[in-house]
């Protein structure tokens, strides 16, 4: 891995850079794999075996074979840089489809005779009635067009973050959540991803970001890819005692499909693990209970027997408690290995994926915290993620958050600022475009092949506030608070009941008293009335009283 002087092995993934970046084809080199590079036919890529990365190939006219290209292949492809000015113009050019004298059949015939790309284009030029009258610029454009159509060339490339990202971005950007290559490169830079770092990755790009991180770190340091579930297996089992069969969904790692395209050797993957967010946070909570922890780890842990075994054993445990998750995981692990393992005499490529982090690994990871964080999970609110994850980051950790939208990052920035969790924050977007540079014809490319936007990035440095921003024991705290609340409520209820009783008693007493008083008053009133009536008839009685009296 240290030098790029490799050759293609069976089972390798390779990137074919077709016609100067016109297309990027990511393919698997096996006996059966065929790719379509030209309109004519499918190309078997198996003969690429043993060729050095960086070799140029020319596809035959029938599109089914290829051979190593020559200098001429390249010069045809790159065109000429000598045309700088023109005296003519295209005033007499009429596009009626009659200019080319060679018929389709004749061209096909030439091709089947095995004419080289350069010669074919010369033939086409010779037989074009209008070629001579065109401006030099048009002539060159014509040649380029014909070259693209009739002679396909490609360069065999070792897959790398840049090529894989560009290939996906062109073909199916939604699968990598719209991450453009410049955005990926900025994420890696802003998050200070480097050898001997500890990187935490939460992504929804099917492994593109994870692969890029692994590539950048080259097997030095640790990477942990997490899925954004807060539940841990234990907690889920606690809830329903294993009745729910879909626990594995919430406890397995994130999708890492694209990682396989990077052809990682085992040592590159060795420092990489996956876990769920909940498991790491729980590990942090456990780790925080310092002294007790070590004994506990010894008790629980499967210690130094290598994480495969540890994993298998962990899976075994799962099987006991809840059949499916364990089995499925096992099968997953198995198939990754099996893919490459069916027979063949050539040196076989095996694909390695990050393994499930063992309990000790998790504790070890969170002990000193992650020094880099990359979030590329647009479907989650970034502030909620970073609020939870802050406690497992190292103070002064660099972070970079991607979102295709601006607003969530703006909110997140405000949150981090208010919580004093980060400084030096930068919310930005990139403007990226390519230029055509030709003498006298230099301008930006007409079609934004780079896409309209690469999304937004929030980056900055975490403060030491992460040491205090502990959300790990939130559940416990909440439980305690709830219990306290309940107790308080009960007390309050009891008190309220008591009060009610007292009140009732009082009320009863009062009522009794009142009744007595009323009686007395009534008696008095009656007496008074009698007195009044007796004293004078002139007093102004209220109407009600009148009515009453009636």
């Amino acid at each position, binding site marked *: 891995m240290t030098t790029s002087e490799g050759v293609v092995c069976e089972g390798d993934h390779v990137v074919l850079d077709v016609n100067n970046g016109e297309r990027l084809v990511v393919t698997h080199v096996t006996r059966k794999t065929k790719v379509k590079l030209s309109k004519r036919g499918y190309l078997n890529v198996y003969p690429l075996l043993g060729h050095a990365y960086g070799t140029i190939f020319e596809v035959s006219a029938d599109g089914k074979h290829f051979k190593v290209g020559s200098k001429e292949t390249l010069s045809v492809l790159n065109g000429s*840089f000598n045309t700088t000015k023109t005296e003519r113009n295209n005033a007499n050019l009429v596009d009626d489809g009659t200019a080319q004298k060679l018929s389709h059949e004749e061209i096909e015939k030439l091709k089947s005779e095995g004419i080289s790309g350069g010669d074919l284009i010369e033939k086409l030029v010779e037989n074009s009635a209008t070629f001579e009258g065109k401006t030099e610029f048009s002539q060159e454009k014509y040649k380029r067009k014909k070259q693209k159509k009739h002679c396909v060339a490609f360069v065999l490339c070792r897959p790398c973050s840049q090529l894989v990202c560009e290939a996906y971005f062109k073909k199916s950007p939604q699968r990598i959540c719209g991450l453009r290559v410049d955005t990926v490169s900025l994420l890696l830079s802003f998050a200070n991803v480097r050898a001997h770092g500890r990187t935490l990755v939460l992504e929804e790009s099917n492994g593109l970001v994870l692969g890029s991180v692994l590539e950048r770190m080259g097997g030095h340091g640790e990477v942990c890819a997490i899925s954004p579930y807060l539940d841990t297996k234990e907690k889920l089992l606690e809830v329903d005692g294993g009745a729910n069969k879909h626990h594995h969904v919430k406890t397995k790692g994130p999708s890492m499909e694209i990682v396989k395209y990077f052809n990682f050797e085992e040592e590159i993957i060795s420092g990489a693990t996956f876990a769920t967010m909940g498991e790491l946070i729980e590990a942090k909570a456990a780790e925080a209970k310092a002294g007790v922890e070590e004994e506990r780890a010894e008790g629980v842990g499967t210690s130094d027997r290598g994480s495969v075994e540890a994993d298998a054993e962990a899976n075994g445990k799962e099987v006991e408690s809840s059949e499916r998750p364990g089995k499925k995981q096992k099968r997953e692990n198995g198939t990754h290995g099996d893919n490459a393992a069916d027979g063949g005499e050539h040196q076989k490529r095996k694909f390695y994926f990050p393994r499930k982090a063992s309990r000790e690994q998790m504790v070890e990871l969170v002990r000193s915290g992650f020094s880099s964080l990359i979030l590329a999970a647009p479907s989650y609110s970034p502030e909620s993620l970073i609020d939870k994850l802050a406690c497992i980051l190292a103070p002064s950790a660099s972070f970079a958050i991607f979102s295709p939208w601006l607003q969530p990052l703006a909110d997140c920035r405000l949150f981090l600022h208010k919580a004093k969790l980060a400084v030096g924050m930068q919310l930005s977007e990139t403007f990226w475009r390519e230029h055509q540079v030709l003498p006298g014809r230099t301008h930006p490319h007409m079609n934004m092949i780079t896409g309209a936007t690469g999304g937004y990035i929030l980056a900055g440095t975490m403060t030491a506030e992460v040491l205090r921003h502990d959300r790990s024991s939130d559940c416990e705290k909440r439980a305690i608070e709830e219990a306290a609340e309940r107790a308080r409520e009960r007390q309050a209820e009891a008190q309220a009941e008591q009060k009610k009783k007292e009140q009732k008693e009082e009320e009863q007493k009062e009522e009794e008293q009142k009744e007595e008083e009323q009686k007395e008053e009534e008696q008095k009133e009656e007496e008074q009335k009698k007195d009044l009536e007796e004293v004078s008839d002139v007093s102004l009685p209220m109407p009600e009283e009148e009515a009453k009296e009636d």
Partner: protein
Amino acid sequence: METEQELNQLLEEEEDGLEEEEDGVDEVLVEEEENEDTGRVENDVTSMDEDALEEDEEAPTRKRKAERDPPAADQEKPQGDAEGSDLSNDEEGAEVIEEEEEEEEEAQVLADAIPWRSSAGAATSGVESLVRDGDLVVVYERHDRMKALRVTKGGILQNRYGVFDQGAWIDKLHFGSVAYAKQFPKKDGAKKEASKRGGQRKRMNGSRQDGFVYVLRPTSELWSLVLPHRTQILYVADISTVVMHLRLRPGMRVVESGTGSGSLTHALYRAVAPSGSVFTFEYHGVRADKAREEFVDHGIDLKSAAADSGKGGVWVEQRDIEQLGFPTDGELYPEGSVDAVFLDLPGPWKAIPSATKCLKVGGTLCSFSPCIEQVQKTLEAMNEENVFYRMRTMEILLRPYELRTEKFNLMTEPGELVAPRTFSAGKDPSRFVRQPSESRLMAIPSEDMRGHTGYLTFAQKVKFDK
């Protein structure tokens, strides 16, 4: 030059009178170069420096006097002020210690791609996130006011937020922590200024205020914001694109020219560390030496070029690449063994032939030029070599956004009258409602966006049929 601008700012701000002293404090650690450039300022700065170190209780009149008399103030020791003199001595002492440590630095096991720390402090603390003696730290005041320094036991940092004792950070302060000033120059203007900038913790009684700064662990990105500029430098957008499109990974061998201020070199090495190496060539002798000092200081220098010991580093050499081309004699690296070449030269086309020889098959070449004419010439030269595939030219710009909370007025219901600004006599205020509004947090592109940095041209060297 960034620091020159600061000095200009300083001069402007001095006119405000009240802020003089505080600004003086801020610039205590101004580099020698700047002082040479602006001798007058140097004097002022030094005098105010001394003033600032005096006890807060000093009578303002005496300070004024000292200011008016700069040469005298230079020699003048603060009278009857033990603490003040201690501080100034400490500071000088600290600088000397710092230099010694740099010389004593030895090879050590890399703790990080770029360790940023000297071997002296390596053993003092077990906890990774604690600041150690001799660590390079980035002192963060505001997003646009940062500064790199080596932490030393007796070191004193002074800026507009106060006087900081670096010794108190060692083995106690976590990276990313707030460091409070142990002493703050007591002056109304300074207070006003500092609280305006936000780097201030207010005490309720109002008798004294402590300034604070954040102490951050350096990264390649932070370094590019604080490094001493010797040339125009590349920033994060271009740097990350270069690293990505050069397809760098650990263990690779990169060749670069010119070194300039070393901003990109750090990022290149970070990408190929720990076993890869960067060979960087600079035609300017002094710049090459300064760059070498920096790499040694940061612990990323390549000890010996020839030995492929598995441990990488950065190799700096003074060489005019445009005139002489890249070395292809095999002394530094075998011909055709380089994974990536980066050119940042006024005439990159002159270096293309030798760069092509250095490159291995499948290796990538990149050239950075501000002008499109340079790009054209470079591409012509590359085309002549006829080994380059997928020559592409691109530009990349970072568009920063600012956050603002804006208030929007809302429409009222029919019949609801919004209260006018002023009520004329006879109008009944109770007939009106207040203007309803809502506040919203929004992002808006920042004013200070860079319009252009340079064009990046990439190409891949390919292999043919022989």
